[in-house]
Structures are given as structure tokens and as C-alpha cells.
């Protein structure tokens, strides 16, 4: 187990370092940072002064380590647009994005797991086909467009729900549906496949032979084993949802870090983009690592693979 943890940790660390280099490169790629900070009317001398002040005239690798050093102490630089510290901008909005991602995942799981189980129990019947149809639908629908349709139907025609902003729980309902739909199909398919595999195994036949009730066999014996890969996919999906919230937050004007990222890209405010990029990537790396370790703890076969 120790070797497994060590190996996974070192891979995660290596990936995290690479992602931070990519984030750093993105900011340098976006243009002349010193000129951006100095402003539009700055003379070449002023730009050179700014470059010296911010250490932008140093060799790139020195700049990188300076940036990492600052980041570790919580200094993510300042927005080129509002001059506010990037950390404050992100902290103000992170709650909205986390809530949206969390609600979306919960809704996706609430739909995906029962549907996947049902489809597997009634494999090759109309229920199975309906479930797969829903999955195809969820995969193919563009979620920005689905969001607009939800706004039109529930916000404009029926007037049941608010269509923009993040003031109350009701504000999250439509964005949650739009975002949750994009991760539901994969979770459903995985539940279905897992259940089909497990239902075919010897110990389930034993459970049937013992005369256990179907409910006990399906939910206590089968689902428990089929759910393992679904749990790790759910953790990975949460990372994906944080990144995918850009679209839904923009459509619904939810003031989270997705909308902030989008606005910052439009304004070429790359210090903010860079921080959000690295933040979302790190969240993904940590979630994947956690799900790997939890899975290895629950299923010893993985550790010795």
C-alpha cells in the first residue's frame, strides 16, 4: 500500500508542476505583460521600469520560481483590469461555482444511479432503451443551448424560476439542470455496465440461490460492488464540472469563477485566467488522487495491479 500511495503521490506532484508551468507559459504567451501593466500610453522607458519592478526582465525560469514562491504565500498577483488582488476576486466567487458543481453532481447522480440500475436489471427491454436514449440525449445536447431553452420555457413562458443571478436557491435550479445533464450520461452508462457485470457473477447467483429477495440482491449485494467505479468517476466529474461551469455561468449570469474566467479572457486579463486555470487543474488533480486512494483502500486488487 505504501508503494502505491508513494507512486500515485509522485505522479500527482509531477502533473501539478507541469500544469503550473503551462499556466505560467499561458500568461507569457498572452502578450507583453509589462506593457499591459504599464497601461496603453506608457513610454518604452516606463514599460522597462515596470518590467524591472515586477521582475519581468529576469530569465524565464527565475520568473517562474518567483511566481511559484508568491503563489504559495497566497499572492496571485493583481487583475490588470480592476487592480484588485486575484485571490480576492476568486474567493468572492468560489462559493457560487462550488455550489453549482456540487448541486449538478448530486442531481446527475440521483438520476444516473437508479436509471443505470433499472436499465441493467431490465436489460434489453424498453426501460433499458429509454435509459440509453436519455444518455444519448444528454450527451448530444449543447449545454449552452439547453440553458437558453430552459430560460425560455421555465423563466419566460411559465415564469416559474429566476433566469439569472445567484441570490437564492431557486437561482441554481436551472443552471444545475443544464450542467448536470452533461455529466449524467457517463455516470449512468458506467452504473449500467457495472451492474451488468456484477449481476453475471457467481456470488450473485449464490445470493439468488439462497432465495434472497430481489431488492436485497440488487441493492445490497450487486450495487455495492458496481458503484465503486461510479464513485471515482463522480470525483473526476466534479473537477470537470468546475471547468465546465464557464459556459453555464455565462448563460445564467451566475457570478462564479467560470464567469470571471470568461470575462477575464475577453478583457485579456490573463493573470486572473492563469490563476483560475491552475486552481481548477489542481482541484482536478487532488480529486483524482483522492478517488484513486479511496478506491485502492476499498478494493485491494487495485493496489497490487
Amino acid at each position, binding site marked *: 500500500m505504501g508503494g502505491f500511495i508513494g507512486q500515485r503521490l509522485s505522479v500527482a506532484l509531477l502533473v501539478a508542476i507541469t*500544469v503550473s508551468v503551462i499556466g505560467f507559459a499561458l500568461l507569457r504567451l498572452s502578450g507583453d505583460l509589462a506593457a499591459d501593466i504599464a497601461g496603453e500610453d506608457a513610454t518604452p522607458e516606463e514599460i522597462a521600469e515596470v518590467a524591472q519592478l515586477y521582475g519581468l526582465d529576469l530569465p524565464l525560469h527565475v520568473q517562474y520560481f518567483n511566481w511559484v514562491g508568491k503563489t504559495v504565500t497566497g499572492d496571485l498577483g493583481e487583475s490588470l483590469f480592476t487592480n484588485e488582488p486575484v485571490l480576492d476576486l476568486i474567493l468572492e466567487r468560489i462559493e457560487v461555482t462550488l455550489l453549482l458543481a456540487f448541486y449538478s453532481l448530486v442531481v446527475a447522480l440521483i438520476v444516473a444511479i437508479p436509471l443505470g440500475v433499472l436499465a441493467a436489471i431490465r436489460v434489453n427491454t424498453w426501460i433499458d432503451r429509454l435509459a440509453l436514449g436519455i444518455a444519448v440525449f444528454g450527451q448530444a445536447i*449543447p449545454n449552452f443551448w439547453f440553458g437558453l431553452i430552459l430560460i425560455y420555457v421555465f423563466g419566460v413562458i411559465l415564469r416559474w424560476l429566476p433566469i439569472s443571478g445567484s441570490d437564492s436557491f431557486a437561482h441554481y435550479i436551472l443552471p444545475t439542470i443544464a450542467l448536470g445533464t452533461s455529466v449524467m450520461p457517463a455516470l449512468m452508462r458506467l452504473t449500467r455496465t457495472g451492474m451488468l457485470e456484477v449481476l453475471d457473477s457467481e456470488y450473485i447467483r449464490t445470493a439468488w440461490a439462497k432465495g434472497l429477495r430481489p431488492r436485497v440482491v440488487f441493492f445490497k449485494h450487486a450495487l455495492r460492488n458496481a458503484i465503486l467505479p461510479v464513485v471515482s468517476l463522480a470525483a473526476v466529474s466534479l473537477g470537470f464540472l468546475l471547468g*465546465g461551469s464557464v459556459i453555464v455561468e455565462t448563460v445564467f449570469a451566475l457570478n462564479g469563477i467560470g464567469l470571471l474566467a470568461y470575462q477575464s479572457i475577453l478583457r485579456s486579463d490573463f493573470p486572473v485566467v492563469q490563476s483560475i486555470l491552475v486552481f481548477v487543474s489542481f482541484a482536478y488533480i487532488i480529486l483524482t488522487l483522492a478517488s484513486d486512494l479511496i478506491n485502492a483502500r476499498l478494493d485491494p486488487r487495485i493496489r497490487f495491479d
Partner: protein
Amino acid sequence: MTEPSKKSNISVMAPSPTEIMRRRVRGHTGFLLGSGFVLLVLLLAVFAPYLSPYDPFEQNLNTRLVNPVWGEGGTWAHILGTDSLGRDYWTRILYGARISLTVGFGAAIISGLIGSVIGIIGGYFGGRIDGVVMYLINVKLALPGILIALSLVSIFGGSLIALVCILGFLFWDRFAVVTRSVTLQIRNNDFVTAAEAVGASKLRIIFGEVLPNVANHIIVVASLEMAIAILVEAVLSFLGLGIQPPTPSWGLLVSEGRNFMFFKPFLITLPGLAIFFLVIAINLMGDGIRDVTSPEGRN
């Protein structure tokens, strides 16, 4: 006495692999529906100039926001109505198919090349080289795709070529994951060992033994990635960081129609449905190819 005809000879024999494939294709409704629709869209895109009397860029401010033929005040002159600048909507959607298909094909080919090379190398050579491949895949998976795509478009611009390259460069991971694991399995087969034993070069084994066995998996993933690239192009164009106006892209049409969606909802529903049906059709086609070429992997 007559000679037994050639035909009766064949009927006694087991069906050839091609014949089995043909039967599977004929029996697969999803594949037939999906590939039929994709073919239809392809034809519409290619022959767009002949299928509409209008120019997709031609504005006519006298006929702004005309409803489709089934709506109030709709005419057969503009079957799907006109947009806010009086451009014929059917023509715009027709030409939009060109963008979607170009981006889909282009991105799938580029990402397929990158991903398959990386995946086959990792799966074939194993060991430390495979470690590097796994590391590359992990880095790619950790990066939020949409965010990177938006940033790169804002840096490099939203030309069609830039977009195809950016998307191709971003979605190679699934190709790498699939080809890697398939190559790992094939590598341990007797025919690969035999080829090694007679002294075939590594390159020859990869192209002669491994690639033909990985090819159908690559095609299945390619169809999936094509659908994803089409969706992402639509998102980027919708957000204003993809295809630039006045070029008609389906995502851009939704974005342009958004300001009028409350009283002219067809401006967003029609291009959205176009994306939706094309993506469903490509997915059905991909699932069909998988079922036909390797039915054991159906679930």
C-alpha cells in the same frame, strides 16, 4: 446433367467476413439512421450554393426577422425565416453545416494522429516510455479543456484553421487512452511474437501488425471526438471566441439570436436543433461502427 452453379457453391460455405459485416450493418437501425443523417448533412453542406437562392451574407433590411413558413407572416420565400439583418436563415444554417463538419473532421484527424501515435508508442514499448505517455495523458486530463480553448482562441484568433488546430491539439487524450490499452493487449499476442521472432523491425510490426488491429477502435473514438469538437466549436462561437461574424456557425447563430429569443425563439431553436441532431447522428454512427466491427464490446 448440369454443372453445379457457382452460386450454390457459395451458399454451402460459411459467409465471408465481409458478408457477416454487411449483414450486421443491415440489421443495425442506429447505424443506418446515424450514418444516413450524417451523409445527408454532408451533401447539404457540399451543395449548399445549389440548395438556396440566397447568399448567406446578403443583408436585406426590408425583410428583417421574418418568421419561418409555419409561423405568423411566414412565406415560402424564406422557409426558415430571416435573422435580425434580413439574411435568409435556411441559407445561414446550410452554410453553418460546412463549418461544423470542417471543424469536426479536421479536429478529429489532428487529435487522432497525435493521440494514436502517443498511445501506440506507450502501449507497444511499455516501461519508462509508457510512463512518459501516462504522464502526458494525466497532464492533459488535468487541464480544463474549455478554459484552455477559450484562452488560446483569444491569443491566436478565431480563424477556422486556428480553431481546428486548437481543438485537434486539445482532444487527443481519449485516442491515446484507447490505443494504448488496445496495443497493450495486442502486443502479447502470438502473431506479434512471431513477427518479432522472424526479425521484423519495430516500425514494421507497429504498422503491419498493431495498427490494423487498433484501426477500428481509432475510428470509433474519432466519431466520438468529432461530435465533441462540433459541440465545443459551437460553444466557443457562442461565447464570441470562435468563428467570427458574419461567417455563419451554428453556435454563432444561437448567440446572434439570443437578443431576440423572447419574441423570435426560432432564431435559437433551429441552429440548436441542427447541432443536436448532427451530434446524435454522429454518436449513433460511432456506436454502430463499434457494434459492427467488434460486437463483443457492446455493453
